């Protein structure tokens, strides 16, 4: 009996709930799935991951196989769909990671102590908890290096009000960031 005929019969038995036939079917189709996937893959190791995705998909869609149709085209359609799906996800993740690396490289140029790089997200998060005006004043003085007098002129405030705002911001940030220690 040919593979195709055998698989068809096993699939029909599996639809009836025959666990043994189903196990045989999945075991027999696994090498066929891997062989169908592997050609043209940039990394042959992916074949195992995709093959397992295909097995799970076969399990999920067993009700969509019709016994008046050959089994192989049905299986091939699932293989092709899962292969494309896997590659699409893989390259999407790769693109996100690459973008992340570019950001990390850019940040590392601007951070003096490289060991503190991971803390940057905490600091940024803490600054965002300040009221918008306080954030602005804090950044102008502590990040951009303006004097209290320049900020006061820019924000149309008194110099002492600017200093009080920075003092409050620093205290609040110390409190928040202290919780992360």
């Amino acid at each position, binding site marked *: 009996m040919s593979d195709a005929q055998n698989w068809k019969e096993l699939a029909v038995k*599996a*639809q*009836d*709930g025959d*666990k*043994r036939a*189903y*196990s045989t079917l*999945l*075991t027999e189709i*696994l090498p066929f799935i891997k062989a169908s996937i592997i050609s043209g893959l940039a990394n042959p190791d992916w074949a*195992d991951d995709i*093959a*397992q995705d295909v*097995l*799970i*998909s076969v*399990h*999920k*869609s*067993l*009700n*969509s*196989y*019709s*016994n008046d*149709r050959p089994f192989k*085209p*049905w299986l*091939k*359609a*699932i293989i*092709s*769909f899962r292969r494309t799906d896997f590659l699409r996800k893989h390259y999407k993740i790769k693109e996100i990671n690459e973008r992340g690396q570019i950001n990390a490289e850019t940040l590392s140029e601007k951070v003096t102590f490289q060991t503190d790089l991971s803390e940057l997200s905490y600091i940024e998060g803490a600054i965002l908890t300040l009221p918008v005006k306080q954030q602005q004043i804090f950044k102008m003085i502590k990040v951009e290096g303006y004097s209290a007098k320049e900020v006061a002129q820019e924000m149309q405030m008194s110099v002492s009000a600017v200093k009080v705002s920075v003092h409050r911001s620093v205290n609040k940030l110390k409190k928040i960031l202290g919780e992360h220690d």
Partner: protein
Amino acid sequence: MIKEKQSAEELIASLSDELVKVKVMPHPLLRTLPWFLIATAYMVIVISIIGLRTDIDVKINDNGFVYELLHIFAISISAALCSSWLCVPDMRGRSKWIIAIPVALLAIFILEGINRFNIGIIHNINMSWHHCYGDALVFSAVPAFAILAISIKGNTTHPYLMSLMNSLSVGALGYAALRLTCSSDDIAHLSSMHIIPYLLFGIIIAALGRNIYRW
């Protein structure tokens, strides 16, 4: 390598253990039928509540109007049938080019609309709120829900095409219902109030196909 082999074997053992008797999906024609019956019955009920257009006696004898309705029904039914075939991974041996039938019918419909359109009409297009928007929403709600419920049970390998066909079948049916209830035959009104909302909604739904029909 041994570890990978073991994990595949473990997966097979686990899947086999989980197996229960499955109910095989009916033929695509049999899956389209319930949708068609539900959608038509719903349309009849809503039309009877909203009321037929006042000049229906005249329009029913107008060959152009009857042809337009038949044309739009053909788009709806062929798109729904395509969706039923697209529900199955291998489409039961059909080529995905079966969608050429509803798409070609839609193209003819659009070309006929363009033929009736002239640039002067563009000033008559009014996108402000009109009862037709609400009617369009009411007409499409249940058929859209029904086709979604039927399609989501399938396992499509063409999620975008299936989503497009579902949108087309619901949109065409809704358009036909609007033609039976709204008295306006003005092409500016038809395009802005009856076609564009369905078209935009259809494009959005089709674009979300992969997310909607994930399996």
